[in-house]
């Protein structure tokens, strides 16, 4: 005990002695369509479990009398004057009660579509949800939408209360019909409710104990269903993820601060920082004021906000993700996401937002909006923008590499928010379907490399050949005419005295890339190698024409980086319909029948160049015209 605590002027607390240990706490959100009785259910639960503070019942009675309305339980949580006057819940609120088993925080979430951002604010804090449906009205728009959003927010435990059973005379068939309909819906989004319970919040049926009005119902009451939820468990058995929150130098220590989101970190562990790809070992886990009876920590589990020191003074900053070397996060500059939009302005392609993922903060641009998802029947429609309160599948692109995970494997590092100007305008979860982890493509594998200087410079080679070397990178859909044009151009340039060579997809896959398959990572590696080889040809003084679909902008940008100033991106353009009509290899037919999966333009994306050096439209001009255009381009840029 310190001197301060021993002082008699202050009330001193005996350390180490503890009466009421903190009980388990579970946070439950109550959601559902407006007027289906969320607030009433909460009021009833509190009343029937004896959890209301003294005088609360009387003060609610008084408020109702003053407004000339019948007794209204909703006034328990609708604290704002505007809420009471209008009889609706505007913002989410919280209230506390306990059962014999544990403590609960009850989160009331507004059912009005207009206040969806407040519903999300409430629901995202919960460990489990109670979804309410009015027996007389049945499953409504927000019943489904809320169910869908719970799933998106990562709330996996859901019980359903079919409320106002008194209005349908406790009719079993009505209940069965609603239960079947709603279970079907939840199942379609991958949610299995623990219980579906017939209740009347107003009359108090099946709230605390079984009701004589529903002798046909054998399941638990609302309180029983809450007590059956599993307590939240921290993801300690997953690969380590700890975003760097800050770096402190308050004293002689340089402390990397952050919260372990998943996994366990130990003193002595070798850590990888992404996306900088630096490594260092944990020297210590720092702590101020140890809890009596606890040892200095040598490890920290998911959930703890900690600080570490490293064995080497490497430069790291906020936003990097700490992992172990063998289980690193994905590195990419493009990803797919399912987003819910809350912004005042709609989300539009081409617009740049600030992405906040963990502690990372980076600009990202909406590359494309794939589908708008109707949360009531899960059907998709296409649209040029995402309106407020809509859910959509989109593709986002960053200006630099980001370290992230897929939501399915690592929820905490696979979800993000988007900020438009000053406001959080939406949230989303990440999927990498069809996109490659680009970590392997950018990481130098060996550090003992010294570049050898050439004795002959590129100028001398160009002078002898009569033209400069370079890369003509053809990109376009299958059937757009890349190979036809490449071969014809090669012939024409050769006849004019150029040193020229075509690198074609199938040919390269027979040799150099024979060890690559068709996974997103292998496809990306395929293009990376072609880009490097083409660059070597160019440096040797030749013109390399590459003919690859190369659908991803990231891959082409990497090839451009390898090729340098002499890289020319040529967009061989034709729309999908035209290409499908041509279908020289019969591939579209196979893709449509499902025989080929992930076929560019049909079942996988083609990211058209937004700033190609040259665009050749093969649906507008003949082969001869296109070759003419290309040959003129080469003459103008390569001839000495």
């Amino acid at each position, binding site marked *: 005990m310190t001197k*301060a605590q021993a002082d008699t*002027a*202050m*009330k001193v*607390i005996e350390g180490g*002695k*503890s*009466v*009421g*240990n*903190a009980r*388990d706490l579970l946070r439950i959100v109550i959601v559902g369509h407006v007027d289906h009785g969320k607030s009433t259910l909460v009021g009833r639960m509190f009343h029937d479990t004896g959890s*209301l*503070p*003294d005088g609360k019942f009387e003060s609610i009675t008084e*408020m109702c009398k*003053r407004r000339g309305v019948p007794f209204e339980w909703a006034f328990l*949580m609708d*604290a*704002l*004057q*505007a809420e009471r006057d209008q009889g609706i819940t505007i*913002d989410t*609120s*919280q*209230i*506390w009660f306990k059962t014999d088993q544990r403590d609960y925080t009850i989160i009331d979430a507004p059912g009005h579509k207009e206040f969806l*951002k*407040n519903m*999300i*604010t409430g629901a995202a*804090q919960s460990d489990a949800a109670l979804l309410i449906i009015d027996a007389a009205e049945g499953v409504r728009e927000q019943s489904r939408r809320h169910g869908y959003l719970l799933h998106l*927010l990562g709330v996996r435990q859901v019980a359903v209360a079919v409320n106002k059973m008194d209005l349908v005379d406790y009719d079993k068939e009505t209940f069965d019909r609603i239960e079947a309909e709603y279970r079907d819906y939840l199942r379609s989004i991958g949610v299995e409710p623990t219980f579906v319970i017939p209740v009347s919040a107003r009359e108090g049926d099946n709230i605390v104990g079984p009701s004589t009005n529903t002798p046909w119902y054998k399941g638990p009451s609302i309180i029983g269903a809450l007590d059956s939820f599993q307590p939240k468990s921290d993801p300690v058995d997953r690969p380590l993820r700890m975003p760097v*929150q*800050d770096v*402190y130098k*308050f*004293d002689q220590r340089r402390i990397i*601060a952050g*919260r372990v989101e998943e996994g366990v970190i130990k003193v002595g562990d070798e850590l990888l920082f992404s996306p900088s790809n630096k490594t260092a070992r944990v020297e210590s886990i*720092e702590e*101020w*004021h140890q*809890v009596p009876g606890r040892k200095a920590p040598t490890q920290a589990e998911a*959930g*703890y*906000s900690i*600080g570490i020191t490293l064995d080497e003074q490497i430069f790291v900053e*906020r936003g990097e993700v700490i992992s172990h070397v063998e289980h690193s996060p994905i590195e990419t500059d493009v990803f797919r996401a399912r987003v819910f939009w*809350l912004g005042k302005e709609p989300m539009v392609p081409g617009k740049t937002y*600030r992405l*906040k993922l963990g502690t990372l903060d980076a600009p990202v641009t909406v590359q494309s909006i794939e589908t708008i998802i109707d949360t009531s029947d899960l059907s998709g429609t296409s649209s040029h923008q995402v309106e407020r309160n809509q859910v959509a599948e989109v593709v986002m692109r960053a200006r630099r590499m980001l370290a992230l995970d897929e939501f399915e494997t690592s929820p905490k590092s696979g*979800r*993000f*928010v988007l*900020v438009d100007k*000053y*406001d*959080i305008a939406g*949230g989303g979860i990440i999927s990498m379907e069809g996109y490659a982890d680009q970590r392997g493509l950018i990481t130098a594998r060996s550090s003992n490399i010294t570049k050898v200087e050439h004795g002959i410079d590129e100028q001398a080679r160009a002078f002898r050949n009569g033209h400069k070397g370079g890369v003509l990178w053809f990109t376009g859909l299958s059937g757009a005419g890349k190979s036809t044009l490449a071969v014809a151009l090669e012939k024409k340039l050769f006849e004019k005295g150029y040193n020229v060579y075509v690198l074609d997809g199938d040919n390269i896959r027979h040799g150099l890339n024979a060890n690559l398959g068709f996974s997103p990572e292998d496809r990306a590696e395929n293009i990376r190698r072609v880009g490097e080889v083409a660059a070597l040809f160019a440096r040797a003084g030749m013109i390399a024409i590459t003919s690859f679909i190369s659908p991803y902008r990231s891959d082409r940008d990497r090839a451009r980086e390898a090729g340098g100033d002499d890289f020319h991106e040529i967009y061989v353009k034709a729309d999908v319909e035209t290409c499908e009509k041509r279908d020289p290899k019969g591939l579209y037919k196979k893709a449509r029948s499902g025989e080929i999966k992930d076929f560019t333009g049909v079942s996988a994306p083609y990211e058209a160049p937004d700033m190609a050096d040259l665009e050749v439209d093969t649906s507008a001009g003949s082969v001869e015209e296109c070759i003419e255009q290309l040959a003129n381009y080469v003459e103008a840029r390569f001839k000495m």
Partner: protein
Amino acid sequence: MDRLDQLESQSIYIFREAFNRIENIAMLWSLGKDSNVMIWLARKAFFGHVPFPVMHVDTEKKFPEMYDFRDRYADEWNLNFIRELCPPIEEVDQTLPPAARSASRKTAGLKAAIQKHQFNALFAGIRRDEEATRAKERVFSPRGQTGQWDFRDQPPEFWDQFKTEFPPGTHVRVHPLLHWTEIDIWLYTQRENIPVIPLYFAKDGKRYRSLGDQDITNPVESEASTIEEIIEELSTTRVSERSGRAMDHESEDAFERLRADGYL
């Protein structure tokens, strides 16, 4: 991870986010049990340091025990301590009922202090379970130019992504204890051996559950004279924590109006 560890970790996360994202931030110290826990958590977050000013907006009407406590721990905890005074009561709207007038005076003192020091943000130790409008608060809660709270249109806040971007002139309240309850505060005070003002312990059958200005704060009936007994009492009581704070009860929406105007 037990409940107190969870609460502590979340508060530390909030402190570090605010400290990283917002320039020129300070902490409000009301001297009560909550703000003492708040200072303790800041020291945990920043490894023994409190890297921002800690400000007491003084009504000069607190209990002497509170002032003793302040003077002692401002020094002992090595705080960058600031004391600012509230304007005289005569300058406050005389039509307000007495307790509301006191609260309004404190709000005026707070606004003046923010103005004087040009603080962009303040840490405040309010909790959701104290009072129904506080239950609707955000962790990062923006205020307008004159300090008012727009409770009808609060920003979304989820997945620990807080609103940290603001147009110039916005002031922010950051609430690191928002998710704690009264009993959590005592359990943590007990576990961590945090010093406590003796007024919280029962004397002659009464104790203070919440401390404010002397003239508008009343003790509650209680025999709890140790932290253990307080925890015991709180796990069975049905009396609300702020029942002894007169300003909450002068009319149905008394507290909502105070808060909309900038009160904590």
